[in-house]
């Protein structure tokens, strides 16, 4: 984690490889779960089951992909939870949600690694994954078909469906934000963002990172005063 001066730009490390791998394992499992789940959710989407080798295979694979997602998200949770505790700044930021939507970033308080909405995504995903996994076990007919009463399984089905819808909405917001706020996706692909991006969206975080020192990766030493390799 560091601020790096490169030839053409300055970058800030945001996610190490182990977090990126976990994020993408979770993301891919989630997409596969959404597709296979949609196949079983609505008849007009049943054709999606052909991507999984037919209806029976979809029924068999869906819960196992859920197990993969639970495990990878559990690790992701451990890696990220310490940045996601709610602070007063987040409440303040949330009060200015109108400015956020309108793109008036100058009215917003300085934000650490995550803003209020990002933390909300984190906690909603945590909640939804737990609910989906719990209800998913209850309707995993092959192994738990007789562990719960039919009435309990009926409730599990509807809660599972509603939680999946809620989670997809959160995921849509998450993906949307990643694309709409330019420069964000680099954080999860290359693991770093530009200094300007950090300044615009997470200034407090940038301050903290810069205070830890700046690594100069340029071939030619800078001519400007006061900027040198980190000690």
């Amino acid at each position, binding site marked *: 984690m560091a601020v790096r001066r490169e030839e053409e730009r300055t970058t800030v490390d945001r996610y190490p490889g182990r977090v990126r791998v976990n994020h993408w394992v979770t993301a891919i499992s989630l997409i596969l779960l959404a597709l296979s789940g949609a196949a079983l959710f609505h008849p007009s989407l049943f054709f999606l089951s052909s991507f999984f080798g037919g209806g029976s295979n979809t029924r068999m694979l869906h819960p196992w992909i859920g197990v993969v997602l639970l495990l990878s998200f559990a690790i992701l949770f451990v890696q990220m939870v310490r940045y996601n505790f709610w602070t007063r700044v987040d409440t303040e930021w949330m009060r200015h949600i109108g400015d956020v939507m309108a793109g008036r970033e100058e009215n917003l308080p300085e934000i650490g690694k995550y803003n209020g909405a990002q933390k909300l995504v984190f906690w909603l995903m945590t909640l939804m994954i737990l609910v989906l996994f719990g209800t998913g076990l209850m309707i995993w007919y092959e192994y738990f078909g007789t562990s719960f009463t039919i009435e309990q399984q009926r409730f599990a089905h509807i809660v599972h469906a509603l939680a999946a*819808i809620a989670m997809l909405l959160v995921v849509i917001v998450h993906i949307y934000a990643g694309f709409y706020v330019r420069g964000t996706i680099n954080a999860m692909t290359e693991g770093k963002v530009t200094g300007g991006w950090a300044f615009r969206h997470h200034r407090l975080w940038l301050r903290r990172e810069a205070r830890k020192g700046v690594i100069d990766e340029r071939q030619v030493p800078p001519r400007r005063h006061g900027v040198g390799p980190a000690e």
Partner: protein
Amino acid sequence: MAGLQSQDFARISATTFRPPDVRHDFEVAKLIDVSKCIGCKACQAACLEWNNLREEVGFNIGVYDNPHDLTPNTWTLMRFTEWENAESGNLEWLIRKDGCMHCADPGCLKACPAPGAIVQYNNGIVDFVSENCIGCGYCVKGCPFNIPRISQTDHKAYKCTLCSDRVSVGQAPACAKACPTGAIVFGTKEAMLNYAEGRITDLKSRGFKNAGIYDPPGVGGTHVMYVLHHADRPQLYANLPQNPRISQVVELWKGLTKYTGMAVVGFAAMFAFVHATVARRNDVSRAEDREAEHLIDEEAARGREA
């Protein structure tokens, strides 16, 4: 299903398409007269034989029910209840042949996510089409009578077919054929209702004043009906439900949730896609890049001091 073809489908699971009603058919029904049943299990044996099924040898736990529950191989089961009639002081042996009721409004079919895995023929028979079945167990949750069973061997759902293969070639179901007392009769639904009338009159004349037919309207009526001596209390007969209906939870899950869920997620995805494509970019400006450099220098200096 020798003679029943896709033209004969009245309903198909997970399908909006309903085939045009070209070939008309009489609604059929099986009438089980509980008052005539002697509990011989000939119907169970005939069912195994005709459908080429074998049941595992089980254990005697002191009841006559054998096996203890419906299984993927046992599509019909005699359930024995000993009941002391407080009014008459008699011990009554109530024997009910349990199995699929072939509802006019089948909950299994409503819950099924696999197109064509559950069908209802024009004649009212509800059938599982195994090659389309994916083994998810949703039918188990849809059924108000707790009938379908999922095989752990081939992961398909099984239940009574009302011998749709026999019926399609003009034969009565195997159980009806085998019944030695004529407690199981088969014919058009209309004929069976008429026949039941006569039986109920007879039972009433013998002192069973609450005798009646079990053709529950909550599921639109059934194509397997019972004549019960105590039709006012069907629960006496091994918990036959008083007023069976498709669970409201299942109705909500397969109704409102299914359509609104699809619409909400679809709309959100579409809106996000369009907005992210056409809206003003939320991009970092040159000025911010420069300010960032300045801030980094400042903070780095502060860091070195500390």
